[in-house]
């Protein structure tokens, strides 16, 4: 697994460093400008979107084929990708939490940091949980469109079910923030298991 993690790290630093540059700019802006708190969730979620990009690169460069000639199982290939995503999510969460904390010190925020970070982390865990299995099943490019259509379909379905009275404001949405994070962590674990099942049956031609 260490080899696969190292490869993902080198690839991320080598080819996707623009993401980190964007994160650095967001981080500086949020710490120094008062009305920029809405950037912090981006900081947390942004690294978690790299999963399907990495799968896309693996396919394009034929690394997915080469990796299976190494002494690693298909389960380990998927395990390494999910562990790497988890590390990216932790990195994004730590960066976001640090920015929130600094904004609080500067008087831009009035508390609720932990709750805000927990909700952002839940979102960051959900993105790869949905994207990765679909990308492993259908390929990263096709998978991205499938996820977009799924979300659109879900929204249209909800709106047509609700009819003219589509209003969520009356719903009791007072769920504790960490419950959302725990639910997202559960979804991440489920997604990991589903991806293993998909990849163990997949033909890498």
């Amino acid at each position, binding site marked *: 697994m260490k080899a696969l993690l190292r490869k993902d790290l080198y690839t991320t630093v080598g080819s996707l460093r623009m993401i980190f540059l964007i994160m650095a700019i967001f981080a500086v802006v949020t710490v120094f400008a008062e009305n920029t708190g809405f950037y912090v969730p981006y900081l947390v979620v942004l690294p978690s979107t790299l999963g399907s990009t990495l799968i896309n690169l693996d396919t394009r460069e034929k690394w997915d084929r*080469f990796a*299976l000639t190494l002494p690693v199982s298909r389960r380990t290939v998927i395990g390494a990708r999910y562990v790497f995503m988890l590390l990216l999510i932790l990195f994004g969460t730590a960066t976001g939490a640090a920015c929130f904390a600094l904004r609080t010190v500067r008087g831009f925020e009035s508390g609720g940091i932990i709750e805000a970070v927990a909700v952002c982390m839940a979102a960051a865990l959900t993105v790869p949980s949905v994207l990765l299995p679909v990308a492993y099943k259908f390929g990263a490019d096709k998978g991205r469109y499938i996820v977009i259509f799924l979300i659109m379909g879900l929204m249209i379905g909800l709106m047509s079910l609700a009819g003219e009275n589509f209003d969520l404001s009356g719903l009791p949405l007072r769920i504790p923030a960490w419950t959302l994070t725990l639910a997202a962590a559960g979804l991440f674990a489920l997604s990991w298991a589903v991806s293993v099942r998909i990849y163990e049956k997949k033909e890498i031609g």
Partner: protein
Amino acid sequence: MNAIEISGLTKKYPGFTLDNISFTVPGGCIVGLIGENGAGKSTTIRLLMDLIRPDSGQIRLLGRTADAALKNDIGVVLDEPGLPAYLNAKQIGRVLADAYTGWDRSAWEDLLRRFAVPADKKFSELSNGTKMKLSLAAALSHNAKLLILDEATNGLDPVVRDEVVDILMEFTRDEEHSILISSHIVSDLERLCDYIAFLHKGKLIVFEEKDALAAEYGVFRGTEEEFAALGGAEVLHKTQTPYGVTAVVRRESVSGGAELSPVGIEELFVMMVKEMD
């Protein structure tokens, strides 16, 4: 012990079937898998490496069914190397050192020097030949007992190809070491291989010791009258031009004192394909 045992291997695709392939790679031997493009060479190798699943048949590598740990003993070069584009040779070396229990760093550095592979250049910036050399260096740097090489001499200039052939021959001096190498550049295999497995349209047409193949067939060159005098000779393929007849014939079926020249594997392979099409 056989390095590879394949029996009844079948894989069906729309429009192509790898059909009931069986052959072995004996320990200490080099087997050349030859065939035209689309004959099934890469499909066979992908099945061996468990990249795709067979519809039926058995594969045993180094005496057992393949698992992740066994791949420590197998060096692989695929038709497209598959190494990460943004990594340089140094970084690739570190990744492979983490992957293989038997990684030999000094062998790796030695091969990179020998092949003149720049250590700091990204893989995507290397020429096709250098990419292939880097892949070969990777396959040869973890004390593998079996090399599986798919079109590994493609893209190499004749001088480097010659050097690679020498390195591969050096590798099989150890009796425990074996190679399965596919190529459509038959001249490389002719120099290198002990056995030839000839695939055509998904079927294994010939699996034979190279020297036995050369001894079994001969080339007749002469006039039409001289050819007619061969009588009931078993002709594999015949080409007629205004200057005379060239035919590949089975030596034992030729009676009398007709003079036959030795047949090269490439010539034999081309004649067989022409005869079957």
